[in-house]
């Protein structure tokens, strides 16, 4: 049986092969052209091919050279951080800066090691006041402050 000696290289290799092939195959939808008149597919095909080849070398090397293990990805952390960002991004327009920020802060606070409701609320109030003053009033960014249905 073949043994993976370097899991990091194994996955990195696979990742590069996947990205490389993605661009090579994606580029087939466009005109390749010639060297003298490079079409939109020309450069991506070369780069993607090169990347897949390098990925291949990294992949095969992982069976030969020893390397580190991959530590698990902190899914809980990413869940809360990503969710908080997307809530902010997609709800800012409909519900306004104040509530969107409150969501961002409270949801992202769940990613921390400890969660104190009073602390988080206090932090939210402080950051919201600061943000409204600096970004909306000071820099004049065109954000709605309150939900549409109220205004």
């Amino acid at each position, binding site marked *: 049986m073949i043994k993976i000696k370097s899991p990091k290289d194994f996955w990195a290799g696979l990742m*590069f092969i996947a990205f490389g092939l993605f661009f090579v195959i994606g580029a087939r939808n466009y005109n390749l052209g010639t*060297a*003298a008149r490079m079409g939109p597919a020309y*450069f991506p095909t070369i780069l993607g091919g*090169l990347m897949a080849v390098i990925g291949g070398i990294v992949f095969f090397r992982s069976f030969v050279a020893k390397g580190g293990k991959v530590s698990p990805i902190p899914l809980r952390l990413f869940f809360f*951080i990503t969710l908080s960002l997307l809530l*902010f991004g997609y709800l800012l327009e409909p519900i306004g800066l104040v509530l969107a920020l409150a969501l961002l802060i409270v949801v992202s606070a769940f990613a921390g*090691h400890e969660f104190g409701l009073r602390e988080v609320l206090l932090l939210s109030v402080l950051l919201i006041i600061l*943000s409204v003053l600096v970004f909306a009033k000071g820099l004049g960014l065109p954000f709605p402050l309150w939900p549409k249905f109220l205004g």
Partner: protein
Amino acid sequence: MGLQFLHNLSLGFGVAFQWLNLFYCLMGVLLGTLIGVLPGIGPVATIAMLLPVTFSLSPTAALIMLAGIYYGAQYGGSTTSILINIPGEASSVVTCLDGYQMARKGRAGPALATAAIGSFFAGCVSTVILAMFAPPLAGIALKFGPAEYFSLMVFGLAAAVVLAHGSLLKAIAMVLLGLLLGLVGTDTTSGTMRFTFGIFELADGVGFVGVAMGLFGIAEIVANLEIKERREVFTSKVGRLMPSKEDFRRMWRPILRGTALGAGLGILPGGGPLLASFGAYALEKKVSRYGHEFGQGAIEGVAAPEAANNAGAQTSFIPLLTLGIPSNVVMALMIGAMMIQGIIPGPKVMTEKPDLFWGLIASMWIGNAMLVVLNLPLIGIWIRLLTVPYRFLYPSILVFMAIGVYSLSNSPFDVLLMAVFGILGHIFVKLECEPAPLILGLILGPMMEENLRRALLLSRGDPIILLTKPISAGFLVAAIILLGIVLAPAIRRKREEVFVED
């Protein structure tokens, strides 16, 4: 050059001393230090975070402020290194070694002052170097054709790859990934939408601000949250700032050597503060009479790398301003900022926008002076900031990043991009693929394609043109030599040793 030089400088100071520009320089330095001092946030993340703040300014004011943010962040980073032993980025790793030891011995004050003095001196000298070397270099660069530019970019990327941590192959793959991501969007020649999958927001390309903030900001927050907080801050023990006579006697030579080495290394593509500070520390350890004290709080171990990384930071503007080529990630962000302001970086900036060019250079000197004047008295505030628990810091950082990135185009898409690249950035780091080369590739992708296209059009499709033009051939050969050297076993081992410290 004498008279012309004075004329340029007076033009520059005229611009830099305008009230508004002074104000933005001050704001840049202050904000840069404020964010840069936060543990685990280096200049790259700081600039990425604050970039949107500058969008509404005039190009000159925006660049002056960004430059201020840059050295402010760098200086803030050394404060953090000295006081809590957490480097904001790779280039302040070596400052941790002796700076933190000095702090533990109750000499945090002199260590901070030494860093400030070293940085200020180096900043002054290298600003003059920048002012002297930029014009002749830009003159040469004006003669470059597409073939030369293409090969120069290959050389720059090769240098960046060589300086990346860890595996060379993976670094090359990351550059390629960056170049490919840079090609997403509307193809300038044919008008074809490439790899946009009908997503309207991708027509203008993958926004580099969102990518940089995800890769360096979000991924960093997650990395910090992954490890439990354990910090020891030497707040009460900063004591008096002023270094003693003995300290001054011991620091001036290392500062001189650090400045010279840093200024030299900063000019190289792929160089900049990282190489400069490592190089200066290693050199100082060899030549200093106090070499045996290194690692136990030797003042030379703070003075030399701090001078070197500031000198390197300053001179790395030379390739940016004369060739339009970023030598490191910070400079890539600067190029991005220039392009957003409608300035095409390159040798023409100096002749077409002399007020911007010389104003920026003069403001660097002013910014460095502001750093010393402000930071030493304000040190108490920065230390307070270090004692703020991370559970309060990271939501605040997220708020600023989210608002900043949203305001790029007032659409949620950039926020999504940042979130996605946050996750990708984390995976990259887990797989030991350094994200810095990706950003360089992302910025250079479209430029490289454009220049290759033009070069091959001129030669009717024959790639040999890259080798028959002497300057172009020179860059390519230099790139191959660089990669070859790193692959050589002896250097490879040494390189791994150097990078193993962080």
